[in-house]
């Protein structure tokens, strides 16, 4: 099976922290899940460790959401396989910061 790069779209603050612009493209071997994507992201960009999921609980931070293919999968298991469109890189894995203001 040919592995395609997984595309990840980060919130602006995390792009600044990781010193990147635009989408991130990650080569991931094996199943494509929330966990394997974030593992790969933290491995490539250590500054992001602890910013998307808690260091200790490994739980998603409460003010972040994961969107794929127009679906909110934030409450899915971190080990659930993601849609083929994410694995093939035709759709990005979106990490979204909760809107807040006032």
């Amino acid at each position, binding site marked *: 099976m040919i592995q395609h790069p997984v595309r990840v779209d980060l*919130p602006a*603050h995390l792009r600044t922290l990781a010193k990147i612009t635009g989408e991130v493209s990650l080569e991931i071997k094996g199943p494509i899940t929330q966990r394997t994507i974030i593992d790969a992201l933290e491995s490539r960009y250590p500054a992001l460790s602890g910013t998307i999921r808690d*260091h*200790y609980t490994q739980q998603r*931070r409460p*003010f*972040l959401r994961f969107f794929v293919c127009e679906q909110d999968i934030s409450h899915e298991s971190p080990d659930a396989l993601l849609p083929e469109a994410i694995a093939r890189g035709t759709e990005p894995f979106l990490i979204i910061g909760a809107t807040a203001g006032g």
Partner: protein
Amino acid sequence: MSSVRLLVGTRKGAFIITSDGKREDWKINGPHFAGWEMYHLKGSPADPNRIYASQSNSWFGQIIQRSNDGGQTWEPVGNKFSYDGVPGTHQWYDGTPHPWEFKRVWHLEPSLTDPDTVYAGIEDAALFRSTDGGANWTELSGLRGHGTGPHWAPGAGGMCLHTIILSPSDPQRIVIAISAAGAFRTDDGGQTWRPINQGLRSAHIPDPTAEVGHCVHHIAMHPSRPSTLYMQKHWDVMRSDNSGDTWHEVSGNLPTDFGFAIDVHAHEPETIYVVPIKSDSEHFPLDGQLRVYRSRTGGDEWEPLTRGLPQSDCYVNVLRDAMSVDTLDTCGIYFGTTGGQVYASSNAGDSWFSIARDLPPVLSVEVQTLA
């Protein structure tokens, strides 16, 4: 020629404000880390170009930044603060046990001698130390584990370890303060700790003279007299002349003894500064008049310093880490407000001027006096 560099942490980024030794013309550089809460930035006394910064927000948690060039460039370092062993519980607001949970770093205190060693005071209250420039952090767990930890409870702002004082005369001695647990001291480099709250009286707790439970807001020390400590408690300004073994009140003629910030003149160990705040329910100056109070007698006798400060319609607060002093011949005093102003005095408080008027709410101000 000497110069000064202010490290200003705000709710929405950090600013570096500089001037030459005349302290007349100021340059504001920033925001650094725009949009993030910058609880505290502090430079190493051993290498002023080494600066540590605490960066956090509710979305992405805690980041520690380090600069090796005086704040021109930064790099994120370690942000993993793991409590030692099983964290256990402290008291929650309703008195029930609540597990210790890391929330943020309130204060960073670089070692007096080693630029790679730095202490971090965190919420929920604990003290951490890094000896590799912030890459890795280890809890000094003797503090939470000395016995009273399960009885500590948060103040309204959270259960934060906000004050870290390293003794210049005894490298084994550290004094820390926690809201709302009180002050604690180690004399063996952080292995063992004990409460140092004798003499504090807090009417808002069940036992006003309890061993722990006092809402200490800040403590200051003059490096030439490390055994003399000045404390701004929730209410009351206090003094100790035996490294915290006992305290006595020196609020004297202050119009209100509630407040957060307290500091000591760089060259006069008996000259201290506070910013009286009306009350714990009205966090602004009395009568809309922003006044620093100075005592030249180590407390009890206070004079208001008003020249250059707003004396009407001023309803800002000055937070605990938002006052600092430089060490130039005529001591400079600096403080920031929740209204985004940074005020400076180049004559030990006799008169004041604004060096920044419209920053985000100021959380911390530290000044470096550079050769």
